[in-house]
């Protein structure tokens, strides 16, 4: 989230799309209700089904799963056409005025792809996706390498230059007319116009006081163009001047209590902790890596840009010092050689594909049920059959640890051929261990163990620690090819076998390795002391820090994440003494944008930060996300993490694999051909696999119903099917379908139906409801169904034989988004039959 849960209470308008917070985040949803009650805020719910969130919304639009960019692009078009945009914000705080290179072409002009597409290789040459340099200078780049962003960008503050970002944006989305939105999304034109009018009403007559927020979850990420959906939302928010504002922002609701923490700590293959870029085989040395990974500023000459990622070497050296201590020296490039060089995509679907094809031999599975969460559960089961070993740390017997007795394996009769050795280790549950959760709002909240672990349970991190120490012992005893990264890893915990998590957090926060002094304030930090924040990090080896964005979470003053001061002096839900949020205990990111160019709040009744002319400093109710002494007249951009200093309506160069502007592409399995460009119906950059299990269906094969998956309040993932209380609340799996569809097929509520995709089948009872309706998609009557995914082949109802013991994700496919590598769980094709 750019903002946070509590901040939602400050909003005037909520667009909730690709998420169902009333269902999946009921506690956080209280702030949406508070905004309704106290500010008369409106909720617009856009979803394939009428949900619990829709039940308290002011307006509901039923959208076809996978057509979100068309909807949002339509709202952008509406806002521009009706002049409901934040003009000053747009000109000064975004790259709307930047001029783009002449040879850049939009998909409307190039048959559905952007300029630079190689149709044979399915790759983009992104050289044209760049700003024009001021004065027509050629962008200087290393020979052979693509030209970087120009240092001085050509710009036009009148926004009239036909090649400026704003004009390109206008042209690009002028194709997303209400009629086109209706054809693609299935939302009738008048309904869409109602939604567009309502959302953009916050900028009626150019007023800047009101703020609107966009709230989403995995209903947006799980598409073959998921990242671009979120980008469209971010662009809309920039266009309306909603980013950095209380009650505004682009707000991702995370699906687990600590999924944000996992992402921060580099749960993904292509980042290091704190979103630092991983080294690749092309990086010959530490310096070469840093040169590639550290951006330089790119902006109109009279403007200023802090370009905070210019500090990348400080964050990286401090990380390597935390990992390797004295073994990381300037001479050995801070142990650069110890780091693996990431040569390709190692994301989720690739790991399973590699196991399926025999290159991955084993798997440690903790905190997740890989077979159940899919996609394509059958492929995952087939992959595990080929593995040599599998370790599962869990609190219940789950589908993954028992993949070898899944109904499909039993039916195929090949259980005896499976040679995989499975180790199932009982692990502590969340209430049985301490540690911190990082919530969707980036707040780190410390918790204590509530109850002791039962029986022979172990801590997950204790198991990992003990495996590591055992491997190290083996290296010590037997030697090995390259023992240094293993032998030199710092491991200074008071309990080496079960590292206390408070000590791990201290390590993540970082400490001084030598006496330090801030030249400006003369403040001193002695060697060995905890760092107060990331501003102290050095690239000379005198600081260590496990994750730069968490610097400040565990200081000399103690564990900041354990603070529980509920006070909120500003009344704006900042609660500065409650837990600790990254970065620097700042609650709303980019909050300098809550002020106009002169540093005065857009809305004096919701003051976040402001420029204090007397002290010549940025001050406020929140921690300013800005250079504290940068005078407004210097025109430093509020988006300090971008080299431009401004928000990117146009995302240049390699920022996104599939284009600088989001374009609507059809889901990989779609009931229609893309009405915008039949020749390029789907995302040209999608990740696809070609194994025997990777099958795709079309309407020609009878797969003509759009299917999406979802969660219920009453259940938590694949856990609570083991808990009698949850099972009582919702006892069985079901399939939600339109009453009209059920009537046509002669299906009554409670009767069994079979849903099949090209990959698998799923049988459950029908929930016949008015909450889903048929839709007209490009002139074709189309049905949509939704299936909650909480069941499998182990659990109370399953073990009692009350379900068909199948997994929803045996229906889903492995095609994935080229940016975040998230598979397309939402919006695939199925056929539905009465059983």
């Amino acid at each position, binding site marked *: 989230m750019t903002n946070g849960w509590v901040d939602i209470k400050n909003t005037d308008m909520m667009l909730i799309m690709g998420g169902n917070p009333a269902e999946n985040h009921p506690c956080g949803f209280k702030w949406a209700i508070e905004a309704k009650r106290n500010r008369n805020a409106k909720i617009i719910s856009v979803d394939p089904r009428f949900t619990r969130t829709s039940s308290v919304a002011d307006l509901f639009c039923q959208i076809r799963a996978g057509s979100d960019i068309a909807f949002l692009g339509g709202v952008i078009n509406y806002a521009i056409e009706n002049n409901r945009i934040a003009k000053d914000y747009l000109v000064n705080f975004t790259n709307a005025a930047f001029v783009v290179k002449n040879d850049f072409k939009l998909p409307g002009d190039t048959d559905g792809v952007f300029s630079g597409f190689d149709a044979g290789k399915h790759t983009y040459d992104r050289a044209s996706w760049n700003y024009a340099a001021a004065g027509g200078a050629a962008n200087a780049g290393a020979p052979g390498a693509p030209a970087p962003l120009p240092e001085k960008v050509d710009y036009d503050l009148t926004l009239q230059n036909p090649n400026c970002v704003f004009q390109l944006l206008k042209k690009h989305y002028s194709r997303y007319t209400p009629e086109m939105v209706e054809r693609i999304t299935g939302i009738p034109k008048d309904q869409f116009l109602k939604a567009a009018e309502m959302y953009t009403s916050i900028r009626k007559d150019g007023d800047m006081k009101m703020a609107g927020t966009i709230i989403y979850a995995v209903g947006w990420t799980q598409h073959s163009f998921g990242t671009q959906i979120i980008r469209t939302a971010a662009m809309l928010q920039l266009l309306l001047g909603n980013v950095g504002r209380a009650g505004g922002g682009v707000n991702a609701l995370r699906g687990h209590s600590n999924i944000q923490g996992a992402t921060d700590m580099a749960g993904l293959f292509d980042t290091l902790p704190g979103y630092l870029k991983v080294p690749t085989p092309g990086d010959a040395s530490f310096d070469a890596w840093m040169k590639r990974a550290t951006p330089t500023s790119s902006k109109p000459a009279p403007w200023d840009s802090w370009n905070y990622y210019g500090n990348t070497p400080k964050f990286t050296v401090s990380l390597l010092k935390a990992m390797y201590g004295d073994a990381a020296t300037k001479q050995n490039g801070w142990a650069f050689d110890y780091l693996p060089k990431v040569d390709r995509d190692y994301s989720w679907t690739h790991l399973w594909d590699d196991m399926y094809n025999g290159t991955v031999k084993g798997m440690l599975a903790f905190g997740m049920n890989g077979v159940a969460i899919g996609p394509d559960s059958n492929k995952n089961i087939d992959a595990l059959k080929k593995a040599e070993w599998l370790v599962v740390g869990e609190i219940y017997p789950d589908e993954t640890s028992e993949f070898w007795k899944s109904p499909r394996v039993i039916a195929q009769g090949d259980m005896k051929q499976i040679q995989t050795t499975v180790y199932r280790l009982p692990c502590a549950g969340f209430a049985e261990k301490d540690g911190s959760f990082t919530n969707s709002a980036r707040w780190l909240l410390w918790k204590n163990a509530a109850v002791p672990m039962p029986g022979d349970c172990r801590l997950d991190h204790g198991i990992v620690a003990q495996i590591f120490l055992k491997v190290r012992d083996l290296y010590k005893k037997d030697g090995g090819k390259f023992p240094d990264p293993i032998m030199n890893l710092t491991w200074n915990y008071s309990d080496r076998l079960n590292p206390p998590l408070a000590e791990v957090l201290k390590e993540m926060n970082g400490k001084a390795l030598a006496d330090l002094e801030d030249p400006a304030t003369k403040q001193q930090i002695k060697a060995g002391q905890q760092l107060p924040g990331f501003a102290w990090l050095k690239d000379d080896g005198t600081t260590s820090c496990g994750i730069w964005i968490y610097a400040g979470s565990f200081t000399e003053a103690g564990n900041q994440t354990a603070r529980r001061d509920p006070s909120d002096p500003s009344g704006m839900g900042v609660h500065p003494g409650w837990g600790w949020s990254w970065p620097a205990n700042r609650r709303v990111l980019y909050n300098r944008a809550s002020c106009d160019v002169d540093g005065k709040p857009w809305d004096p009744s919701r003051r976040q930060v402001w420029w204090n002319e007397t002290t010549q400093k940025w001050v406020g109710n929140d921690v300013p996300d800005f250079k504290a002494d940068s005078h407004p007249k210097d025109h430093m951009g509020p988006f300090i993490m971008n080299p431009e200093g401004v928000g990117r309506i146009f995302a240049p160069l390699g920022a996104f694999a599939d284009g600088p502007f989001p374009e609507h592409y059809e889901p990989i399995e779609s009931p229609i051909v893309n009405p915008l460009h039949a020749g390029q119906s789907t995302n040209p950059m999608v990740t696809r696999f070609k194994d025997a299990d990777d099958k795709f269906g079309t309407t020609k094969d009878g797969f003509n119903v759009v299917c999406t998956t979802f969660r219920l309040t009453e259940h938590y993932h694949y856990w609570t099917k083991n808990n009698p209380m949850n099972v*009582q609340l919702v006892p069985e799996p079901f399939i939600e379908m339109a009453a009209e569809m059920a009537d046509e097929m002669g299906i009554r509520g409670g009767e069994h139906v079979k849903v099949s995709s090209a990959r698998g089948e799923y049988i459950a009872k029908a929930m016949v409801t008015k909450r889903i309706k048929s839709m007209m998609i490009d002139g074709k009557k189309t049905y949509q169904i939704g299936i909650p995914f909480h069941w499998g082949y182990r659990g109370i109802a399953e073990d009692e034989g009350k379900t068909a013991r199948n997994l929803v994700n045996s229906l889903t496919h492995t095609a994935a988004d080229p940016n975040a590598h998230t598979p397309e769980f939402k919006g695939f094709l199925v056929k539905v039959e009465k059983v």
Partner: protein
Amino acid sequence: MSQETLRIQKISGHAGTVAGEGTQREYTICKLIDTTTCIGCKACEVACMEWNDLPFGETIFGNTYQTMPETRWNYWNLILFNEHEREDGSLMWLMRKNQCMHCADPGCLAACPSDGAIVQYTNGIVDFQQANCIGCGYCITGCPFDIPKLNPQTKRVFKCTLCTDRVGEGLEPACIKSCPTGCLHFGSKDDMLDLAEKRAKQLRDHSNYPNAGVYDPKGVGGTSVVYVLHDAANPELYGGLPKDPHIPWSVKLWKGPLKWLGNVAMVGGLIGLFVHYLRFGPKDRDEEEMKAETKS
């Protein structure tokens, strides 16, 4: 709220005077349920079960998100889910937390022939005393909201106590404490009605609900549980909330003009026994009852 508010002002089947009768109810408590901000998350259902130590029961899929068709003797708090299409074609998914309404003029208490099986405290809570319950089921007939339920095994009737044990200690009922959206409120009746009216007005002025209003039915003397409804003109849409609930005429007759009859304890007892026999027959458990039983 304190123990003081738990003085008894009405007693079922009681011959003679009641100490608290006619006491001005200075501390009348009230639960406010704003159905327009309820998201049907069922936290209140779970809190009710956990606080009152009610056992898990078996449920079956019923083509709805609703946990079970109606409240049970061991499930006192149930959110009712109803889909309703408005005239303009838009859909409403109405969620109403259903439980005892704690009527000021309780039909259950009026109907109950057993001395002390049902009492009403000065704070407004209507509470069943199972030790005195004879299982006749009159209260079930007397309730216009279909709330009290018989445990077929013990032949005792149960329902929501409004967490008398918590309220007596100055705490809010368990359901209120668990509500994540704050659609549930608890306080004095005056305060709750004030809050409810304000919310209803807000809905009328700022949302598309011109008929929003407060449900506090006069036919039962008002209730200690009041609702804010999007459409107060049609409470039936919310899972059959009666538009004008009142105590059944048979009960009124029994407790009104024929009250002298009830005062003759012997006769009352005999009739009670006779009617019990008529209603339930000899003490055999038929199949229906077996089915109604829930697994503990």
